[in-house]
């Protein structure tokens, strides 16, 4: 049977990830240091794993309520208030399968065919395909190195049309490490305040903000009613494999999101939800210790990259450095392939995150200090050879 005329046209038209082949090759080579992965190298803190095991031990293996365990949603509201001064009613919190599901159902809840969705770029690879599948139109707004990859309020203003429905607001940013501090948010808020544009604030890296606390755009005056906050346990608590996230936002949006979630997912994994209650109750110190370790590596990698001649701005968040490789005259793809094959260091070409990422590479510092130092030595040798 020939499926090419049978499969969903929208799904067929999604661009395949161009770098999978590259990283499959990397995984088959020996002695490769991968600074390519986008997840913590830490294990989930033991007390969290224990809470998951205990829940299994007690046989808590049924579905939970669609919206998530009441105790967990309550802890989430406390956490959001404690860490980010965000006040939410428990009924406006939905527990999801990772931040990814929250992003997906938020977009699906809001987008009608033809609606425009603004996406700062370079960005996480999933946003545009999710918008495309909803029949929306993704409109990239290029962020640049001179602005330390912040969303520029002028560029935002220019991109807004009568069809603009949603702004995806991904800070701290994957892949750039860029962040928006309060003074930067103020300018964005000024542009949005007289519009009906909804903000999907993807704050999955919020706890990994260096040199000051993360400020949520939802905590800015007048923004709570316009914003859906997405967060989760993957990055802050090193819980990627547990697949657990959540969204909090205006009741009307949350009701529709919950409706889709009920039909598509039923509920987030029960074991993960029990573990997450423990995470929120007793792991503030653990996540701060992990953030301190990332910060140390961040300083080493940024100093090292600039020293060996790859210009890199000081990224204020996440666990990525996004240096420019323009001085080499190579494309990002060629640079990364050469680095992998001649020096066995895997990093991600910047154009994987949108055309505007060309000329950059993403380096993850979710890797041990010794790996980072060795990788820097290898990169220095590579730069001398090319």
């Amino acid at each position, binding site marked *: 049977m020939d499926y090419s005329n049978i499969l969903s046209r929208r799904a067929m038209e999604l661009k395949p990830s161009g770098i999978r082949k590259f990283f499959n090759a990397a995984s088959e080579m020996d002695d490769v240091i*991968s600074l390519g992965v986008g*997840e913590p190298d830490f294990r989930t803190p033991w007390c969290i794993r224990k809470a998951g095991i205990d829940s299994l031990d007690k046989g808590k293996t049924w579905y939970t309520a669609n919206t998530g365990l009441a105790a967990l949603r309550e802890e989430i509201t406390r956490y959001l208030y404690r860490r980010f001064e965000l006040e939410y009613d428990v009924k406006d919190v939905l527990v999801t399968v990772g931040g990814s599901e929250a992003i997906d159902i938020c977009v699906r809840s809001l987008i009608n065919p033809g609606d425009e969705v603004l996406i700062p770029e370079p960005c996480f690879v999933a946003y545009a395909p999710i918008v495309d599948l909803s029949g929306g139109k993704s409109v990239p707004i290029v962020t640049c190195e001179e602005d330390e990859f912040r969303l520029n309020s002028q560029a935002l203003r220019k991109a807004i049309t009568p069809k603009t429905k949603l702004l995806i607001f991904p800070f701290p940013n994957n892949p750039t490490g860029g962040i928006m501090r309060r003074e930067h948010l103020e300018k964005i808020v000024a542009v949005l305040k007289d519009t009906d544009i909804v903000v999907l604030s993807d704050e999955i890296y919020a706890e990994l903000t260096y040199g000051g606390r993360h400020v949520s755009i939802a905590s800015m005056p007048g923004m709570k009613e316009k914003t859906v906050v997405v967060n989760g346990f993957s990055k802050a608590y090193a819980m990627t494999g547990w697949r657990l996230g959540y969204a909090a936002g205006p009741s009307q949006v949350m009701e529709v999101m919950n409706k889709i979630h009920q039909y598509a997912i039923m509920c987030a994994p029960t074991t993960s939800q029990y573990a997450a209650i423990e995470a929120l109750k007793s792991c503030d110190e653990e996540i701060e210790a992990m953030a301190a370790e990332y910060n140390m590596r961040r300083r*080493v990698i940024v100093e090292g990259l600039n020293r060996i001649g790859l210009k890199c701005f000081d990224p204020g968040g996440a666990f990525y450095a996004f240096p420019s490789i323009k001085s080499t005259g190579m494309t990002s793809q060629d640079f990364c392939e050469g680095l992998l094959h001649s020096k066995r260091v895997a990093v991600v070409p910047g154009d994987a995150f949108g055309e505007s990422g060309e000329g950059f590479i993403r380096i993850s510092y979710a890797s041990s200090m010794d790996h980072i130092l060795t990788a820097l030595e290898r990169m220095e040798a590579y730069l001398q050879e090319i």
Partner: protein
Amino acid sequence: MYELLKLLEHNARYSTAQLATMLGTTEAEVQAAIAQYEKEGVIRGYTTIVDWEKTEREYVSARIELKVVPEKNRGFEEVAEQISRFEEVRSLRLMSGGYDLAVTVVGKTFRDIASFVAYRLASLESVQSTATHFILRTYKENGVVTEQSKDERGVVL
């Protein structure tokens, strides 16, 4: 701030420049702090973690539990000093619990260690009893796991 000590304990070969970057301070400050720690004896020395099992060297180590009669005025100090002086002794600690001194001893063969225990340790006047446990395999030493586990993380983006 114990961060500097923790870093050096993890890897004594970090350069002062690397340490300064990690800690967000200057090389001069790192050098000064290390000098001070060395002077105060907080830093006792720098060593290398060797996995002798991977070499051809004949090597046996054992952990010996000693029960000791403390001396009237000096407690365990006297016998601890005596035992510390033996070259075969790699570490010596006073313990709480079922015995008093924990001694780690290395030698070339099991017989070396057996005769060390019999002739040098057991013969000390204040030593009441010895229990010798040979070390069969080291899985982790100074915080370093001997068999490195593979990075299982696969998803890139």
